């Protein structure tokens, strides 16, 4: 393993410190417990939004802390959900009296730790609502799995919920809009090569020279199958049809098309994939009304990408378009 790090045990603390220093205009970093919150304190009467999860998916979540998106982010160790303590500390730090929405990716660890934090926050008199993101269609949502995983679609949910909170919606409304975004969003990814967790020292999985992991998760979890590498147009077709079938996208729909890089994929490859996905959608009579292309929910230096589609209505479009000012997404400010 070659990485630009010091001690693997210090990776998250040092990265968060660097993030705080580089974006001191946007965020304040708390160490011990570790969380990142907006530079300006809570606005009284405004709903706060807290998300978090294992590190290694940057810019998710800290990169989305700021005006119009998250109030705080709680990064755990690499690929390991944070414990309830920092979640609770972040919750207390950002609560403006109007309640706090937790946006939680659907993994056992995240669910359990945010659940405990919510219990503790409620005990402290803070109202908490939680929304689970489970956009990954690679995994069937059945009794025989831990349910679908939360992947790149989380960005969409955080943006929509953030805009709703920013315009002054109450907690129930913000939560309802976040759930609407979840319901309207599906994703699926593919990997050519896994990232390496610093303290593990070996890649999460090893693929053959011509093999891809189709339906990969953002922790390098396997997906539907290992299959031979194909031209990206064919891969995009497989990913997109899995996504749109599950979402039930039909001619006449307006969608957000989001091609997400996993960390080690050159940007030209993302745009080549975007091009094909946009073509396919328009052939199906679907309007690509909004786009996002880039590394937003990564898996360390994984080589691969995911495709996310969100079906837009007028309100979701308006919330997507609303100004946002964070380290990783900025527009209109």
């Amino acid at each position, binding site marked *: 393993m070659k990485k630009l790090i010091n001690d693997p045990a210090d990776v998250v603390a040092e990265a968060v410190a660097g993030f705080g220093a580089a974006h001191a205009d946007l965020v304040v970093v708390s160490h011990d417990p570790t969380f990142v919150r907006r530079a300006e304190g809570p606005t009284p009467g405004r709903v706060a939004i807290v998300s978090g999860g294992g590190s290694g998916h940057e810019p998710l979540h800290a990169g989305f802390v700021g005006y119009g998106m998250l109030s705080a982010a709680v990064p755990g160790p690499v690929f390991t959900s944070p414990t309830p303590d920092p979640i609770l500390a972040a919750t207390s730090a950002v609560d403006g009296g109007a309640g706090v929405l937790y946006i939680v990716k659907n993994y056992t*660890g995240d669910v359990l730790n945010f659940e405990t934090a919510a219990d503790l926050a409620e005990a402290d008199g803070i109202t908490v609502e939680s929304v689970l993101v489970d956009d990954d269609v690679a995994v069937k949502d059945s009794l025989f799995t831990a349910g679908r995983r939360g992947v790149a679609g989380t960005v969409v949910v955080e943006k929509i919920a953030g805009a709703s909170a920013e315009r002054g919606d109450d907690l129930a409304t913000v939560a309802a809009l976040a759930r609407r975004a979840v319901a309207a969003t599906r994703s699926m990814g593919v990997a050519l090569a896994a990232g390496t967790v610093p303290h593990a020292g070996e890649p999460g999985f090893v693929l053959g020279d011509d093999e891809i992991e189709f339906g990969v998760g953002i922790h390098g979890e396997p997906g539907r199958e290992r299959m031979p590498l194909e031209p990206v147009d064919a891969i995009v077709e497989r990913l997109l049809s899995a996504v749109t079938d599950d979402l039930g996208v039909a001619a006449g729909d307006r969608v957000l098309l989001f091609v997400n890089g996993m960390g080690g994929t050159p940007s030209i490859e993302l745009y080549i994939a975007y091009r094909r996905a946009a073509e396919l959608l328009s052939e199906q009579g679907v309007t690509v009304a909004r786009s996002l292309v880039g590394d937003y929910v990564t898996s360390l230096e994984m080589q691969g990408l995911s495709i996310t589609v969100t079906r837009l209505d007028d309100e979701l479009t308006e919330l997507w378009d609303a100004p946002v000012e964070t380290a990783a997404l900025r527009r209109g400010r």
Partner: protein
Amino acid sequence: MTLDSTWVRAWIERTAEVLTTERHTLSELDRQIGDGDHGENLARGFAAVRERIGQTPDDATPATLVKLVATTLISTVGGAAGPLLGTAYLKGAAALGDASELDARAVVALLTAARDGVVLRGKAETGDKTMVDAWTPAVDAAAAAAESGATPADVLRAAADAAAEGAAATEPLVARKGRASYLGDRAIGHRDPGAQSSSLIITAAADTAAGSNKES
């Protein structure tokens, strides 16, 4: 060894040692069917436990010590294992009450409460290829041993043997909870890391109860 608070301290110490030694093996199991952090998570947690236990007053009861393990794991491990094992110790502490020494029945109550805690949080059933597959055989074997009049140490030995078998028996299973559930058939042939670590924890209890606190 009498199963008093000195034993609880020895058990915790032994657990911390074993999990540090087995850290890479556990993470490697997790890398196969999960995300490769299980050993790291538990090593981090028990390092914190060891430090905090060292600061408790000498007269801390077994329940106080076990509860400290619970809260420390909950606040330092994270992931799935943190809340699950944390709840196990939390419920176990509650089952101990204010007893200063554990008899065979108390050992069974401790293990049962711990297992029930895991199930309460994680909703896993036997055969789902999780840590429950170590805990439930341990509980059953402990109950049977206690029933037949075994000493507390022998109850723990029976539990440990059953937990180890249970962990091994997860290998042919398909997972239905946790991260390994995403693998479908591809999880077959791999041992569940959480079942393995739970078996190590229960074995540490048996080893220290037998006074055989040998280095591995």
